[in-house]
């Protein structure tokens, strides 16, 4: 889901940077108010986890590959604003050092994976696990469902961003200037593969880690102030 340089036109790239700047500013402001010193190591390991889990490319035999993001997990543990910062750092390092995701697309990739994904996942987790005891199985289910839906909404958005490009930018003869596939191909491709395969990877990873933490350190799952 890492959109490379060249797939989005300048307007789309600019818009997503413009959207993300105030989001990053709000995240800094809110995290500054809520993040405690003892939570910083958890934030660091959350960002590291997100970074490495994205390296686990899962194949669709004979087709494409994809991966989990781990972002819903970070949001469950530290809240969506802190997750936004952690995943943004992972995505920027991936783009700058490893060319994974374009530098012009950092705004769009962060919008999908560092903003929408953790927020959607966080609120779904909150809704399903409402009032559940810390050791409840409902929290594990909630984590899985939140991971699945969070990554699929992000994939849908990436599909829309790809798919809008041929409408926005083409030559007089109709050749695309950036991503050549329209909404009718990009959206089913991106959403379909995440609904079928990669969404389940995110769901299982998120649910398993929450289950592990319930045993090891349930206080990490305690409700806390978000904003």
């Amino acid at each position, binding site marked *: 889901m890492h959109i490379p340089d060249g797939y989005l036109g300048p307007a789309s790239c600019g818009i997503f940077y413009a959207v993300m700047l105030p989001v990053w500013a709000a995240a800094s402001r809110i995290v500054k108010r809520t993040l405690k010193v003892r939570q910083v190591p958890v934030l*660091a390991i959350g960002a590291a986890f997100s970074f490495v889990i994205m390296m686990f490319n899962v194949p669709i035999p004979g087709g494409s590959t994809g991966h989990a993001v781990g972002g819903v997990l970070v949001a469950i543990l530290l809240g969506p604003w802190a997750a936004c910062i952690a995943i943004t750092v992972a995505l920027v390092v991936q783009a700058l050092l*490893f*060319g994974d995701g374009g530098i012009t697309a950092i705004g769009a990739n962060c919008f999908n994976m560092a903003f929408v994904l953790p927020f959607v996942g966080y609120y779904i987790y909150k809704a399903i696990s409402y009032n559940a005891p810390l050791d409840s199985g409902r929290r594990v289910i909630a984590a899985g469902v939140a991971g699945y839906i969070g990554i699929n909404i992000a994939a849908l958005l990436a599909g829309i961003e790809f798919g809008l490009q041929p409408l926005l930018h083409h030559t007089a003869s109709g050749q695309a200037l950036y991503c050549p596939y329209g909404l009718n191909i990009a959206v089913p491709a991106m959403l379909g593969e995440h609904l079928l395969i990669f969404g389940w990877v995110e769901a299982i990873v998120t649910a398993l880690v929450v289950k592990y933490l319930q045993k090891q350190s349930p206080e990490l799952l305690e409700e806390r102030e978000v904003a």
Partner: protein
Amino acid sequence: MKLITKLWIGMGILILISPLGLFLPERFKAGDAWGEWGTDGIKELVGYIPQGLDKLSSLWSAPIPDYAFKGWEEKGLGSLSLAYIVSAIIGILVTVGVVLLIGKLLSRKE
């Protein structure tokens, strides 16, 4: 053992087995992620390289492109795996460093 130590051990294991992210796609003949093709790949798919894409795609030259060392492209999966693991370590060190710095600036004492 403290939980954070256990989690970092888990992270170490993930780093060591990260080449699975190389092996499995290779084994199951899976290509690039959707929408992440290089210019050659896109020419094969649609018959031409979109002009804007062609220009922008070479905008940034990453020091460790695709988690592989430059000049190692033709080496076997063993070397690529080593590069993948080293990339994971470098990436995690930088990510953790940046987050700790941000955390130091943003966090508050209890």
